């Protein structure tokens, strides 16, 4: 307990509190800009963080990422463009809710869920860190392979009405993930001698193209025709009613646990957590048919999960020095630079520092509520700007965001190409989400599959004979064959039914 108060004293310093406020504002801004992710916000902060005291540096990173994670929902709600990849899963739900005048149920819900998720994750981090790390450390490529494949299978769940169109979109994403250098042999695939393609297709660029540019194209073609419809009904209270919030308690709790667990897995971050929570929420939802068309349940589950994942990713970071996601990869760097070696001994040697991290997490997520409300109002003001001014500015920020990833103009061509592709796809009712999922998880599936096969000398049974891998493998197969089995059972019952009645 003394360590906790030592941590509290470390945080309650003027310089730490001021940096928390500044980085909060910065995080909210970066998160609101489509294409600039929470990771990028943190990456931009690194040069500053190096000059700060250890606690202030960590506080900056934690606050900034938590704020950016929520702020990504704001453009998602108002413009149908996710501000960060982690908001992509429930973008359409948010936007449809806002359109039907339920601002509080969309953004207010996501704000409170984000804060709750962050706090829930922080509490799990405080009490379960060593336990969770012991679980996560047993994951080898077999488990990752199944987990990613399970994630890909979820693509069919988020695919929308037409499963076939969803699968087609997924295959396009999987194809894009194949481009670049082969992971095992280093041989070039589909690069056609273009040096820039050796890097593979950048996820951020595709996301900006698929979600932002395609949306701008859609808006541009609609200009002049339905000008009146363009105004969004953005009236309504910024917060949901207590009753609505209470109704979502199960989704919030489930999202928090799923988010923390996925965040704790090295390599899987907030975006994957949001997708998985979205799919799981749909399974348990009262109204699964509303998912993708303005479901409060979808927002509650996924918005909780992505913030919880942030906290969860600190588990392997602190306990083994293995980063849980791209943000904590930067955190490890900052920690070492500040003379703190992450590892099991960090809980003994730097207990005050570890407690300071917990406290900053709690503080940042509490601070998220008032600052988030301010950001929502700001977002409302921004949305009332004339389209002719607003959309070019968004386009500029999107292109800047894509360029900033690798300072490479080639990324802009990728944005343009995917923007046109996805615009055409969406005009013909092909969903974009599976494409993104295919691109992200395709590489994870392939790399872990190849690693596993090499380790097992080509022996397939090794994919099942480890306890966690076996369970995940069977689960994946069930997800695949469930519709088939359910269909067969229904048909058998269907033929049996009439005979019963007669």
């Amino acid at each position, binding site marked *: 307990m003394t360590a906790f108060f030592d941590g509290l004293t470390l945080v309650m310093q003027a310089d730490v509190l001021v940096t928390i406020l500044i980085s909060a504002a910065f995080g909210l801004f970066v998160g609101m800009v489509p294409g600039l992710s929470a990771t990028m916000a*943190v*990456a931009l902060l*690194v*040069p500053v963080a*190096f000059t700060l005291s250890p606690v202030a540096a960590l506080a900056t990173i934690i606050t900034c990422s938590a704020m950016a994670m929520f702020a990504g929902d704001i453009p998602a709600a108002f413009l149908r463009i996710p501000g960060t990849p982690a908001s992509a899963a429930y973008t359409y739900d948010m936007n449809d809710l806002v359109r039907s005048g339920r601002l509080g149920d969309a953004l207010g819900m996501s704000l409170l869920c984000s804060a709750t998720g962050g706090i829930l994750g922080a509490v799990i981090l405080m009490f379960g860190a060593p336990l969770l790390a012991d679980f996560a*450390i*047993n*994951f*080898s*490529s*077999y488990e990752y392979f199944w987990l990613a494949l399970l994630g890909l299978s979820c693509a069919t769940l988020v695919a929308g009405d037409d499963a076939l169109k969803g699968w087609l979109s997924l295959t396009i994403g999987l194809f894009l993930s194949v481009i*670049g*250098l082969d*992971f*095992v*042999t*280093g041989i*070039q695939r589909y690069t056609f001698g273009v*040096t*820039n*393609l*050796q*890097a*593979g297709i*950048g996820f951020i660029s595709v996301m900006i193209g698929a979600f932002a540019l395609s949306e701008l194209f859609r808006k541009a073609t609609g200009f002049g025709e339905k000008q009146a419809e363009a105004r969004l009904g953005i009236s309504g209270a910024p917060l949901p009613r207590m009753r609505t919030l209470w109704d979502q308690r199960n989704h919030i709790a489930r999202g928090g646990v799923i988010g923390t667990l996925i965040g704790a897995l*090295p*390599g899987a971050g907030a975006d994957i957590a949001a997708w998985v929570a979205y799919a799981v929420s749909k399974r348990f939802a009262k109204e699964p048919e509303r998912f993708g068309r303005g479901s409060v349940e979808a927002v509650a589950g996924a918005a909780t999960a992505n913030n919880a994942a942030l906290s969860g990713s600190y588990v392997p970071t602190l306990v*083994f*020095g*293995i*980063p849980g996601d*791209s943000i904590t*990869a*930067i955190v490890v*760097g900052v920690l*070492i*630079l500040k*003379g703190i*070696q*992450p*590892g*099991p*001994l960090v809980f003994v040697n730097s207990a005050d520092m570890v407690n300071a991290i917990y406290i900053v997490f709690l503080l940042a997520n509490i601070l998220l509520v008032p600052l988030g409300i301010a950001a929502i109002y700001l977002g409302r003001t921004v949305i009332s700007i004339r389209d002719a001014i607003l959309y070019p500015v968004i386009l500029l920020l999107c292109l800047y965001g894509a360029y900033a990833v*690798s*300072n*490479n103009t080639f990324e802009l061509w990728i944005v343009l190409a995917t923007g046109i592709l996805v615009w055409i796809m969406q005009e013909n009712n092909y969903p974009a989400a599976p494409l993104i999922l295919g691109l992200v998880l395709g590489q994870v599936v392939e*790399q872990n599959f*190849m*690693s596993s096969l*090499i*380790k097992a*000398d080509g022996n397939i049974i090794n994919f099942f004979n480890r306890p966690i891998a076996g369970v995940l493998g069977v689960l994946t197969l069930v997800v695949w064959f469930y519709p088939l089995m359910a269909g067969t059972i229904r048909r058998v019952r269907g033929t049996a039914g009439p005979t019963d009645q007669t």
Partner: protein
Amino acid sequence: MLKKLATSAIVLAISAGAAMAEFPEKPITLIVPWAAGGGTDAVARILASGLEKELGVSVNVVNKPGGGSVIGHSEMLTTNPDGYTLGFGTAELSTFYWAGQSEIKATDFNPIALVNFDSGAFHVPTSSDWTDVAAALEEIKAQPAGTFKVSGTGTGAAYHLAFAGFLKANGVDPLAVTLVPSQGAAPGFQELAAGGIDVVLSSLPEGMAMMQAEKSKPLAVFSEERIAAFPDVPTAEEATGKPFAGGTWRGVVGPQGLDPEVAKTLEDAVVKVGNSEEFVAFMNEKGFGLRVRGSEAFGEFLAEQHVQVGSIMNDLGIAQRKE
């Protein structure tokens, strides 16, 4: 007439000299071929801040990641050779030619100064029966190829080549141990802890957390002398009797055609910063191996790397070009 010519020649020479003396007069860009937030990026940023003080102009770090760093490295060569755009080259640049990724050879770069060399180390799980690297080599030799697996590095990456080179130097087929490619040391160590592989090849500081957690132990380090921060880890020579050094490195490079005066100014500045107290303290703290070498030694090193990497990549069967 002759006099006039002579005067104008002198005037020209002086003005040219003056222009030279003024270098640098505007901000310098340092291209980092890896992403922001990584190890190379961190070293580059500290180096850049030191260079700012030394040269009196701002030095901006610009990250150009992608394609296993081939994109950033290509740009270092095609940039305007005025000394205002430099690159922070890493060990990978000597592999592109052999891997068929591009036409760039290590010898194409204009060496300015080397600042870092990280020696690879041979990590095994604490539960492993191998107590020293000689025993490990014996068993690798005795068992059929592919019995043992190594990870912690990508195919054709610096540590992979160092590991293969080490096996070769000790009379073992470089292909006897199968590589399970991973992106960096961390996933490799996780595989090691999860029991999927037998060896991780990475630097000693990268294995620090796992050593403290008593999940892994280093058997040898591929350097000529023991590493100060890890006095208990024997060198390759002490462990096997055969000297071997291998690992990854970082240094400042430029395009060909730099003015010799400009190159000299830059070399002096980098060497001075490399030996400065602040930089040395940073490198030690962060666990990077310090190795500061001027242009000439760096150039020889690059030429040597080009040949060595070509030979070992051909042995491994991952080269697209013959030696």
